[in-house]
């Protein structure tokens, strides 16, 4: 493995710092807990609102909490190019997830051999979809915990299938881990980057 030099480390840290605030982990975790509660209380349609809330809240929280602490940074041309590529790759992953989702709904609409086989798998395809998204985010943005989350999701959904758990238990487990980890990361981030007083133009 190529050893990273000091400048490469600085560049990577400058980039990764923006993804170490834990806000996304916390919001995704919270929406999974919310979805799980909706399943428990038999109001699944409300569960769909949870991820939408996370998507709405995320940019606002980033702007309110992260930017004033971390400051503004424009990455190197190389990194910006990689980010652009990542966006395309994430879109491909999104399309793939959408196709899987459509496939799943087809699987539940009939009783042919393959549809029965899919049904026997229970929630495993949902777990695979979530794990793929977590792993893709982790790899593309250099955030190591993404792969950890992917493993957790696979483990939770596999054990859920083998032990015949209700889907809400798996969602609750993953949601709690994600939100607690997000909270820890957030506290660490806030401590590491305290809010500095506003810079007046006459300051320098």
């Amino acid at each position, binding site marked *: 493995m190529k050893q990273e030099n*000091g*400048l*490469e480390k*600085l*560049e990577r840290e*400058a980039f990764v710092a923006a993804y170490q605030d834990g806000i996304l982990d916390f919001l995704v975790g919270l929406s999974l807990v919310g979805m799980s509660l909706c399943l428990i209380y038999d109001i699944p349609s409300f569960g769909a609102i949870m991820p939408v809330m996370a998507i709405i809240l995320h940019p606002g929280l980033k*702007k309110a909490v992260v930017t*004033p*602490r*971390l*400051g*503004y*940074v*424009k*990455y*190197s*041309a190389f*990194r*910006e190019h990689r980010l652009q590529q990542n966006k395309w790759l994430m879109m491909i992953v999104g399309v793939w997830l959408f196709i899987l989702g459509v496939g799943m709904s087809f699987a539940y609409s009939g009783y042919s051999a393959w549809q029965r086989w899919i049904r026997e798998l229970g929630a495993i395809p949902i777990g695979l979809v979530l794990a793929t998204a977590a792993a893709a985010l982790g790899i593309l943005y250099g955030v190591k915990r993404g792969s950890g989350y992917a493993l957790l999701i696979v483990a939770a959904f596999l054990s859920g299938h083998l032990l015949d758990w209700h889907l809400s238990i798996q969602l609750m487990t993953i949601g709690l881990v994600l939100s607690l980890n997000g909270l820890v990361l957030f506290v660490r981030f806030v401590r590491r*980057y305290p809010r*500095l007083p506003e*810079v007046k*133009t006459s*300051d*320098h």
Partner: protein
Amino acid sequence: MTTKAQSNHEEAQALPELDRLIHEPARLTIVAHLFVISEADFIYLEQKTQLTRGNLSSHLRKLEDAGYTLVEKKFVERIPRTVVQLTETGRMAFVNYRKAMLGFLGR
């Protein structure tokens, strides 16, 4: 002893002419951070270098006077920011400084 002292003296003489403006630790930190990105605001540099605002301002002014950095006041997402970037001269100076240090320490 004389031979060792002589050798030390020769090595000291072989020390390349370093860019004193960059060689200073605080400024080296600033330049290194700016070298790996395109541009950053004052808060980012304050957080990364852990320098006080006054210190950072003073070092940035020296770098700006030498033409190594460019300080601009601009609006980023409708928020006024003091944005700092390394100029081409600054980048070249850092590359040369790095080469000189690597050449000397790598011997």
